[in-house]
């Protein structure tokens, strides 16, 4: 049976999660140099275009189609077959709305990976990669925990996506950074955020959307909805407080980029746990999740690993922490379902740990292989010169901040222009 209140909330929650994709574009776009913001933003926008379509074609079905293998779903729902206005089993909302809510997750997860490879990946290669990834990696992980797959059969608790979304993106990002390689200036020059105002606004909008992300993962109005909502308020507050305290201690000064990062890390940490743990435990998780993420985000830029915007540190690790934390702190008194180790159910911890092992392996390996395959067909990186000029101009033929000076209108469209590509097109342009 469809319920109005449940549907009203899920419509809103879905819209909120969809909004997170442009918010991520802004967050990431502020963190890169001015010559790369458009390309960075575009990688989020294109995830919307591409993943929506792959999700309709097969992604949704591969995640949520009933199967007996426990690994990947069937094609029962491919092309939106059997998805209509009837109630989604176990909920009081229509199947189509459930589909849309899940689509919003697949989109943003693909967009998240882009943070690892900004400022040098070729746009076409990224598009090809996320098309494959949204069919072969994300749905598999989602099937494991939500689609009736093996992890869910063992009762693994993952409220809003520690497995497919956070570890899924974080460990994929790490693999992508390895395959694509570092920016030429990494470790040689300071690569600073060009607009920290965008970063903090982006983080604020992400946090806003996250209330839909987490409290929407209850698929209606119930106790877990409220719990998830309140926990999404408390957990990042604790992360923010702890993160700023650490920065004050280490540098003498808490930073705005740090605050923005902390809010994201706190939201990630609570994502898997939102509907499972008590508000008090949520505050504790916020504090705990800060530590590994902070440490890795400090350490990573000093290495040769140019996982540029620290998707691994912020999402992969905090998601890992959250999943494990549930194993200790899940509390039937709050979630109505089951307890963690601290409340007597040690097996829960075991299976949460299994999820924390299997997910990174699959995400890392899957992304590694897919990107290598894409690399066989398309060059993955822009040329050195294009990287120096900037990906906005070379990949999109645009500048974010243009004054129009020195810009001469090209009046006659050269007849053969549309046959030229890349360098050739540029030369032709110059010769006009």
């Amino acid at each position, binding site marked *: 049976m469809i319920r109005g209140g449940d549907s009203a909330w899920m419509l809103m929650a879905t819209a909120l999660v969809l909004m997170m994709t442009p918010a991520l574009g802004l967050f990431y776009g502020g963190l890169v140099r001015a010559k790369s913001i458009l390309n960075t933003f575009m990688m989020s926008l294109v995830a919307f275009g591409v993943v929506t379509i792959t999700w309709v074609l097969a992604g949704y079905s591969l995640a949520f189609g009933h199967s007996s293998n426990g690994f990947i779903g069937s094609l029962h729902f491919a092309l939106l077959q059997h998805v209509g206005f009837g109630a989604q089993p176990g909920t009081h909302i229509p199947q189509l709305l459930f589909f849309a809510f899940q689509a919003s997750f697949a989109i943003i997860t693909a967009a998240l990976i882009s943070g690892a490879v900004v400022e040098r990946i070729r746009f076409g290669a990224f598009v090809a990669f996320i098309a494959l990834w949204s069919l072969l990696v994300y749905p598999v992980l989602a099937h494991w925990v939500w689609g009736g797959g093996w992890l869910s059969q063992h009762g693994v608790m993952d409220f809003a996506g520690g497995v497919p979304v956070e570890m899924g993106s974080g460990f994929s990002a790490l693999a992508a950074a390895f395959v694509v390689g570092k920016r030429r200036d990494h470790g040689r020059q*300071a*690569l*600073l*955020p060009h607009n920290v105002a965008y970063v903090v606004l982006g983080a604020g909008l992400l946090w806003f959307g996250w209330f839909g992300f987490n409290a929407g993962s209850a698929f209606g109005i119930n106790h877990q909805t409220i719990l998830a909502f309140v926990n999404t308020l408390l957990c990042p507050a604790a992360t923010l407080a702890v993160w700023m305290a650490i*920065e004050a201690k280490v*540098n003498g*000064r808490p*930073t705005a*980029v*740090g605050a923005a*990062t902390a809010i994201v890390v706190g939201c990630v940490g609570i994502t898997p746990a939102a509907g499972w743990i008590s508000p008090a435990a949520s505050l504790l998780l916020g504090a705990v999740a800060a530590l590994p993420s902070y440490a890795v*985000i*400090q*350490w*990573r*830029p*000093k290495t040769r690993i140019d996982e540029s915007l*620290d998707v691994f540190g912020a999402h992969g690790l905090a998601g890992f922490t959250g999943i494990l934390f549930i194993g200790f702190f899940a509390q039937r008194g709050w979630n109505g379902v089951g307890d963690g180790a601290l409340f007597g159910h040690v097996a829960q911890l075991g299976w949460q740990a299994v999820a924390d092992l299997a997910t990174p392996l699959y995400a890392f390996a899957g992304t590694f292989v897919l990107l290598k395959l894409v690399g066989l067909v398309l060059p993955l990186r822009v040329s050195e010169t294009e990287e120096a000029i900037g990906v906005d101009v070379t990949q999109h033929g645009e500048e974010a901040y243009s004054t129009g000076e020195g810009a001469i209108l090209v009046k006659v469209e050269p007849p053969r222009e549309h046959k030229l590509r890349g360098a050739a097109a540029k030369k032709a342009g110059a010769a006009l």
Partner: protein
Amino acid sequence: MKLVIAVVRPEKTNDVLEALYRAKVKGITMSRVQGHGGETERVETYRGTRVQMSLSEKVRFEIAVSDSFADAAVSAIAEGGQTGEVGDGKIFVLDLERAVRIRTGDSDVDAVTPVGGTS
């Protein structure tokens, strides 16, 4: 004629401008620049990236004056821009061969402060 170039602290910009107006210097061109000098360097932190910032924001003035006016302009800037702390900046004076007012095509001293002052 002389071309006076000065680099001053941004927070003293308006003081310098006022000193120049008082000295009856009318034509002024100004831009935002970054300078490196004897000032203490700042350490900034962006996530795990820690950097030392060796440049500070400055404002650069460029003023063409007739020979007789050069000293007045230099004094005005020096007075308006001084705080006494390291980083106050420098004034450079170059010889200027020729000046043209685009609006009229007038050449030489007519185009610079104070002769032919524009208002």
